[in-house]
C-alpha cells in the first residue's frame, strides 16, 4: 500500500467513526436565536459611558502611531445593537460594526520618497459613505470621522498641509474648507463635534531617514511639531498656539487629540504609555501615567466591573475589585467594549502562528464566542481600521 492510499483510506475510515447527532439543525436554530437575543439590551449603559476605541499600528511598517476615535457625549439612543461583518471583501466594502461601534474609516500607508534622501508616509483613506452604503476610497491624506458617522474632517494634499475640510458623509460633498497659515499633519474632532484640533508641523510628521532597505533603523531627524489650531465649528474661529516637540519623543509625529471632556487636549507620552495633558492654550496640565487608550486598550467595562488586560496573546479580563481573572481570550488585542460581555479586538489567524496576520473580531469575555467581523490581513502592510461610535 502506498503512502497516499494509506492516508486517504485512513482518513475516510476515521471520518466514519464520527457520531452524527440527530438534532444538529435544532441546535443551530436555537443557538442563532440565542445569539441574536444576547446582543440586545446593553445600549443604554453604553450611551452614558464614554468608552473610546483605538487602533494600533503595529511597529515594523511605519512609526508607532495611535488613532483614536473618541466617543460622543450624546450618542444615538438607543445605541445600535446589531452586528455587521464583511469577511468576503478585503478591505471591506460593506459596513463592519458591532453594537455601538463601527469601522468608520480605514487606511493603508506606503513609503514615498521626499526627494531629499528621506521617506515619508503616504496615506490612502477609505470612509463609510452613508450616501452609497459602502466604504469608498478618498483622495485625502488624513481623515477623522465624527461619532455618528455623518461628518469627517479631512486634510487635503501632502502632509503637512494648509488645507482642512469637512466632508458630509451623507452626500460625500465638502461642506467647509479651512485655510491655515501653519501646515497641519493631523486633525481630530472633539467628541461632541463642536471643535477640531489640528497639530501643525514644519516638515512631514512621518518623515524618516532609513539606514537600511528593510526600514528597520533610522537616524533621528529634527522633530518638527510647531503647535496646534483649535477650530471652533460654531463660532467659525481658528486659534493657533505654539507647542514645541516633547524632548523624550523619538517620533516626529506628536498629534494632539481631545479628551472625553471636550476641553483638554492630550498627546501620547512615549515613556510609560501615559499621556501629556494640555489646555487649549497649550499650557501643560501634567501627565497621566496609566491611560489605557494610549496603549490601545479597552480599559474598564461599561458597568465598571471588569478590566480588559494588556495586549498580547492570550488576552485576559480581570475583576476590577478582586483582581481575579474572569476570562481569557485567544486574541492579540482588545480595543473596545461592545457591552459588558463582549469586546472588539484583533484576533489572530490560524493557530496564532503569525502575530501580524489578524482580523477584527468580536469576542465574549469568556473567550468562547467569537464573531469575525472583517477579513484577515497582514496588519503591517494592509488596511487598518479606525473604530468610531456609530
Amino acid at each position, binding site marked *: 500500500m502506498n503512502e497516499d492510499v*494509506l492516508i486517504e483510506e485512513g*482518513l475516510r475510515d476515521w471520518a466514519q467513526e464520527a*457520531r452524527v447527532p440527530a438534532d444538529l*439543525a435544532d441546535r443551530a436554530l436555537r443557538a*442563532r436565536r440565542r445569539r441574536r437575543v444576547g446582543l440586545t439590551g446593553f445600549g443604554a449603559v453604553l450611551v452614558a459611558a464614554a468608552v473610546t476605541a483605538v487602533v494600533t499600528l503595529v511597529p515594523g511598517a511605519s512609526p508607532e502611531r495611535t488613532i483614536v476615535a473618541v466617543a460622543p457625549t450624546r450618542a444615538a439612543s438607543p445605541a445600535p445593537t446589531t452586528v455587521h461583518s464583511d469577511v468576503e471583501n478585503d478591505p471591506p466594502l460593506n459596513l463592519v460594526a458591532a453594537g455601538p461601534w463601527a469601522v468608520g474609516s480605514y487606511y493603508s500607508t506606503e513609503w514615498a520618497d521626499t526627494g531629499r534622501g528621506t521617506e515619508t508616509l503616504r496615506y490612502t483613506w477609505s470612509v463609510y459613505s452613508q450616501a452609497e452604503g459602502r466604504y469608498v476610497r478618498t483622495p485625502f491624506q488624513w481623515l477623522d470621522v465624527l461619532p455618528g458617522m455623518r461628518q469627517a474632517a479631512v486634510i487635503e494634499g501632502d502632509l503637512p498641509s494648509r488645507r482642512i475640510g469637512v466632508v458630509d458623509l451623507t452626500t460625500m460633498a465638502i461642506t467647509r474648507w479651512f485655510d491655515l497659515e501653519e501646515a497641519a499633519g493631523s486633525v481630530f474632532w472633539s467628541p461632541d463635534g463642536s471643535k477640531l484640533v489640528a497639530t501643525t508641523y514644519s516638515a512631514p510628521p512621518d518623515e524618516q531617514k532609513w539606514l537600511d532597505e528593510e526600514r528597520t533603523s533610522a537616524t533621528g531627524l529634527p522633530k518638527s511639531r510647531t503647535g496646534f489650531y483649535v477650530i471652533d465649528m460654531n463660532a467659525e474661529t481658528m486659534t493657533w498656539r505654539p507647542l514645541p516637540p516633547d524632548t523624550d519623543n523619538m517620533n516626529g509625529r506628536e498629534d494632539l487629540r481631545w479628551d472625553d471632556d471636550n476641553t483638554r487636549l492630550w498627546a501620547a507620552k512615549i515613556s510609560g504609555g501615559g499621556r501629556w495633558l494640555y489646555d487649549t492654550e497649550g499650557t501643560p496640565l501634567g501627565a497621566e501615567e496609566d491611560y489605557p487608550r494610549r496603549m490601545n486598550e479597552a480599559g474598564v467595562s461599561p458597568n465598571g466591573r471588569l478590566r480588559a488586560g494588556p495586549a498580547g496573546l492570550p488576552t485576559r479580563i480581570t475583576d476590577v475589585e478582586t483582581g481575579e481573572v474572569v476570562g481569557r481570550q485567544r486574541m492579540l488585542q482588545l480595543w473596545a467594549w461592545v457591552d459588558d460581555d463582549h469586546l472588539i479586538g484583533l484576533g489572530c489567524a490560524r*493557530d496564532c*502562528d503569525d502575530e501580524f496576520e489578524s482580523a477584527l473580531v468580536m469576542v465574549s469575555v469568556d473567550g468562547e464566542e467569537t464573531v*469575525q467581523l472583517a477579513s484577515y490581513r497582514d496588519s503591517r502592510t494592509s488596511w487598518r481600521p479606525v473604530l468610531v461610535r456609530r
Partner: protein
Amino acid sequence: MDSAAELRFREFVAARSPALMGLAYLLTAGDQHAAEDLVQSSLVRALAKWDRIDDPEAYLKRVMYHQHVSLWRRAFRRHETTVAEPPEKGADDATRTVELRLALREALATLTRRQRAMLVLRFYEDLPEEEIARLMGCSVGTVRSTTHRSLAKLRSADLRELTR
C-alpha cells in the same frame, strides 16, 4: 427566516450531517465534542445568510475550515486527541493495517490545525493545490511546503513502515 427556508435548512442538515460531521471529526483529530461544536457554529453562520447561499455544502465546508483553522474556538482547551496506543507489532496483514491506521491517527493528532486541515483537503476532500490555497488563503507554494512538512512529520512518527 420563513418556515419554507427553515424547512430547507432542516432537510439539508438531515441529508448532509454525516459528511459534515466526518469532515469536522477529521479537522478536530477525532474529538467528537469539538466536531459537533464546529458543525453547529458553522451552521449558525450559514443560517445568517441561508437565503443567499447557492451551494450550502461548499459554503459550510469553507466556513468550517475557516473557523477551525483561522479562528480559535475554545481558547485553551486544545482538541488534540490522544488516540489509543497501537497494539504490539507483528501478526497478520489485517492487524498490520489497523496498526498503521492507529499510528496515522496518532500522528495526525500531533499536527497543527493548519497542517492537518491541509492534509484533509488534499487526501480526504481530494482538492487540487490551487483550490486548497484559495480556501486557506495562502499561496500554492505554502500549500506544498506545509503538506511536505506534514507528511515528513507523519513519516517520522510511526508511519515509517507504511510503504514497506
